[in-house]
């Protein structure tokens, strides 16, 4: 049985919650731009000034490529844990997940659990080896065992593709969200976010991005805790009363206590789950975080902190989501007669903050959502810039670059990616970009994760096996996603989908592993591999 056409947008919209806030919900909300509260504008200005100050402070220290790209590996495990958690507490997770629960119940939490369960995989398999063997990108780990040039080119292409898809989705989501929150048009919203992102990333680098993530994570957890506490207080801290009210308010009744969209097709859900479970361990902007700490111990402890914080955050979102159903549905101040929230269901936590804490809390939460977007896109930009300079340029030129050149190219790449993000964000206005995120996760799971896994744990992997397998994973995940129901049928309008599932990870991950193995055992690595030497002062 396949997931019905009607449920597919919901599934993908929910799947996209960790990266973007737009998607299926945004289409209905664009036409309902609200006027910004004065408190929202005040908090927005405060956060914008604060982030710029942080970027100028960090810029004074970012005089080397290692400082710019990895904060000189001087971030502590606690700070890195908060920053990793901040990457996951995106505006998409906060707004999209709450909105998904508001719309139909437990499906949103199913996605949250899937993302949380991916962290033990990251910790057990890749976190420590990455810190031990890597410097700027995951390709550093691969090139310890394999020929450097083809591997760097492959890793660079894969990273740029993933980052680009993520970036476009973020920019579209950011434009829609900012236009909704602050009452400005989509175009100006994208340009404002894009310019801040470019200034922030180009100047401050990873240190600035990390500190903004840390501050944002603290504010996000604090704000969510405040809303969740105020919601529970409305029900005398009795969760049963909260559920009773939510079930009685929602037209689907008790069904909101179970997953719905994900229960329709087990294979599709399994494929999506596999993609998430292993995709996190292949996402460049997540892997970058392990290069910012000093050693393996700090890397693994930071994952533990992050997992605890992400779990806490998702638990609070659970209360916020069901609290939105209980308190906002049927209230004409926040929702229309059909139950749709004014401004779109993604604004559920903003409306809920207003309902339980007034306009000050709502303004604070709106501004935190903005800071979240800025922090996430900046991290993406730096991950892309790092790979562009360290992998793609080095791989294509066949020459290692010195520190000064690496720093310069990284900054140029960050700026170029930022401009590209703005232009694509403007071009994709109104598009449902959820599939871009599904695609990025599938590529990360299919192309990056198998190579990392085999390079770390199997001595038999050869350069040829890695290149053929990685290319297979990259191409197959792109092609199968394109032939899936969302892109083939809905976006391109080419009739019934050739491939029945939106996420191909269930098939592409094992196939990529198999191809790597077959090609590697078919022909041994030739002796005398060529690595590119580090430049010396004499040169």
């Amino acid at each position: 049985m396949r997931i019905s056409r009607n449920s597919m947008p919901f599934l993908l919209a929910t799947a996209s919650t960790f990266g973007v806030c737009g998607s299926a919900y945004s289409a209905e909300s664009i036409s309902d731009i609200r006027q910004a509260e004065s408190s929202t504008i005040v908090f927005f200005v405060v956060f914008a000034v604060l982030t710029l100050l942080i970027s100028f402070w960090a810029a004074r220290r970012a005089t080397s490529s290692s400082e710019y790209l990895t904060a000189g590996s001087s971030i502590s495990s606690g700070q890195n844990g908060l920053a990793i958690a901040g990457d996951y507490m995106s505006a998409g997770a906060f707004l999209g997940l709450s909105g998904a629960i508001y719309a139909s119940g437990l499906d949103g939490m199913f996605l949250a659990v899937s993302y949380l369960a991916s962290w033990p995989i990251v910790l057990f398999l890749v976190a420590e080896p990455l810190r031990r063997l890597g410097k700027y990108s995951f390709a550093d780990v691969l090139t310890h065992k394999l020929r450097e040039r083809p591997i760097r080119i492959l890793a660079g292409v894969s990273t740029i593709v993933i980052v680009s898809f993520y970036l476009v989705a973020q920019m579209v989501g950011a434009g829609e969200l900012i236009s909704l929150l602050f009452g400005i048009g989509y175009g100006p919203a994208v340009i404002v976010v894009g310019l801040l992102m470019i200034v922030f990333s180009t100047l401050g680098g990873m240190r600035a991005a990390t500190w903004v993530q840390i501050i944002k994570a603290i504010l996000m957890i604090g704000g969510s805790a405040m809303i969740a506490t105020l919601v529970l207080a409305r029900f005398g801290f009795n969760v049963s009363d909260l559920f009773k009210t939510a079930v009685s308010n929602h037209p689907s009744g008790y069904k909101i206590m179970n997953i719905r969209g994900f229960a329709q097709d087990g294979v599709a859900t399994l494929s999506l789950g596999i993609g998430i479970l292993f995709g996190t361990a292949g996402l460049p902007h997540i892997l970058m975080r392990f290069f910012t700490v000093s050693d393996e111990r700090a890397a693994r402890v930071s994952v533990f902190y992050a997992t605890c914080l992400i779990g806490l955050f998702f638990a609070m979102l659970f209360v916020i989501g069901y609290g939105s159903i209980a308190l906002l549905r049927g209230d004409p101040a926040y929702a229309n007669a059909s139950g749709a929230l004014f401004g779109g269901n993604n604004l559920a936590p903003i409306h809920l903050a207003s309902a339980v804490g007034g306009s000050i809390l709502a303004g604070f939460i709106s501004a935190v959502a903005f800071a979240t977007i800025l922090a996430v896109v900046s991290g993406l930009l730096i991950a892309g810039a790092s790979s562009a300079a360290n992998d793609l340029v080095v791989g294509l030129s066949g020459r290692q670059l010195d520190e000064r050149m690496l720093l310069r190219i990284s900054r140029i790449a960050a700026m170029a990616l930022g401009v590209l993000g703005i232009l694509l964000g403007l071009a994709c206005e109104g598009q449902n970009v959820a599939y871009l995120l599904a695609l990025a996760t599938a590529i990360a799971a299919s192309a990056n994760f198998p190579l990392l896994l085999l390079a770390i744990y199997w001595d038999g992997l050869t350069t040829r096996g890695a290149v053929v397998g990685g290319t297979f994973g990259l191409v197959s995940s792109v092609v199968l996603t394109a032939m899936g129901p969302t892109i083939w049928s809905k976006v391109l309008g080419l009739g019934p989908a050739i491939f029945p599932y939106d996420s191909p990870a269930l098939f592409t991950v094992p196939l990529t592993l198999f191809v790597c193995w077959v090609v590697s055992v078919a022909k041994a690595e030739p002796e005398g591999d060529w690595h590119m030497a580090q430049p010396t002062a004499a040169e």
Partner: protein
Amino acid sequence: MQGESRLYKATEVVPLRVTAHRLGALRFWLVLATIVSYLAMMAFSIYSARHAAQSAVVAAEFSPAMIALASCMAFSVVLTGLFVFVRNEE
């Protein structure tokens, strides 16, 4: 061009093989436990959704699917904590 260099034979520059820690028994069992618990949660949630009780009394408490999701979340946190504790002790 400044900062660039010719290609060297790898064995002249860095060791060709860098020892990567093999997949130890602890890692293997923990990875397996993570995957199995996640798949069990998924299977149970889908089963619960297809055989959902409609009683209003049941609705007053956490549903079985919610408990499955919460258990999987808690298990993920516990596993990471266990791994970090064991590795730090080493």
